[in-house]
C-alpha cells in the first residue's frame, strides 16, 4: 500500500511538472534540456528499495514502524504519558529489569533475575 501510494505520488509530481511546462515551469526536455525538480509541498518521498532479499534484511526507520510521534528512541515513555500509567502493561512494552520477576523459562536458577552490572 505504501509503495502504491509512493508511486502515485511520484507520477503525480512528474505529471504536474509536465502540465506546468505550458507555463514555462517544471520539466522541459527538448531541445535545450532544462531539468527542474519540483517538490510538492508536504509530500514525503519514500525511497523504494528492491533488495529486501539480501542477507541482513530490511532497513528500518521510525516512519516504517509507524512511530507517529516521531520522537527519538529514548527508551522512555512518551511525554504525554501519565507517570503512573507509564508501565509495561500500559505501553505494550516489556517490563524493565527490576520491575518484574524474570520469565519462568528454566534458564535462571531459583528465579533469580539477571542484572546489568555496568
Amino acid at each position, binding site marked *: 500500500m505504501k509503495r502504491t501510494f509512493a508511486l502515485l505520488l511520484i507520477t503525480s509530481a512528474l505529471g504536474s511538472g509536465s502540465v506546468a511546462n505550458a507555463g514555462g515551469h517544471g520539466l522541459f526536455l527538448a531541445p535545450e534540456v532544462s531539468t527542474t525538480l519540483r517538490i510538492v509541498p508536504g509530500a514525503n518521498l519514500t525511497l523504494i528499495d528492491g533488495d529486501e532479499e539480501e542477507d541482513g*534484511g*530490511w532497513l*528500518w526507520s521510525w516512519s516504517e514502524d509507524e512511530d507517529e510521534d516521531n520522537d527519538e528512541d529514548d527508551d522512555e515513555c512518551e511525554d504525554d504519558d501519565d507517570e503512573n500509567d507509564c508501565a509495561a502493561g500500559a505501553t505494550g512494552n516489556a517490563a524493565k529489569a527490576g520491575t518484574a520477576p524474570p520469565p519462568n523459562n528454566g*534458564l535462571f536458577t531459583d528465579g533469580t533475575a539477571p542484572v546489568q*552490572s*555496568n
Partner: protein
Amino acid sequence: MKSLIAALALSTALIAPGLALARPVTLTVNMAQYGGPGAYLAVYVTDASGAYVGSLWMAGGKSKYYKHLTDWAQMTGGDVAQVDGITGASVGAGQQLQLSMDLADALFDAGYTLHIDAAAEEMRDSPNEIAVPLTAAGAGQAVRGRRYIADFTYGF
C-alpha cells in the same frame, strides 16, 4: 524435636540441590563503532535441536521494534512476555553491556547455544550476530560479531 529435625532435613534437601545447580555467569557485549544510534539486542538460548528455550536479556525498551530482531521474533512470535523483567536500554556504538546472572548448570556442555540478534535504526537487521555454544571450555573466549557487536564473552 523430631519433627523439627525432619523439617530442617527436608528443607535442606530441597534447597541444596538448587544451590548446586546454579552457576554465576557474566555476559559481556562490546559494541563496534558501527556509526549509528543505540542497537537493540536480543540474547536468547536454543537447545541442541535449534529450538528456542528462552531469553536471557533484551536491550531495547520499545516492543514495536522487536520484529527487527528477526530470528528472535520468529522463534517467539514477538511475545513480549518472553522478556518481561529482563529488559534494559539499547546499547550505543562503542559501549559495553555487562550482565550478571545465575544460570542453570545444566545449560553448559549440553548442546545449548547462546544467540544474539542485533538491529539499529535505519541500518540493516543482523539476526544471529552471535551464536556461541555454551560450554565450560568456551568461558572467557571472545567471539567476534559481524556488524554491530565487536565481541562477546561469557565467563564464570
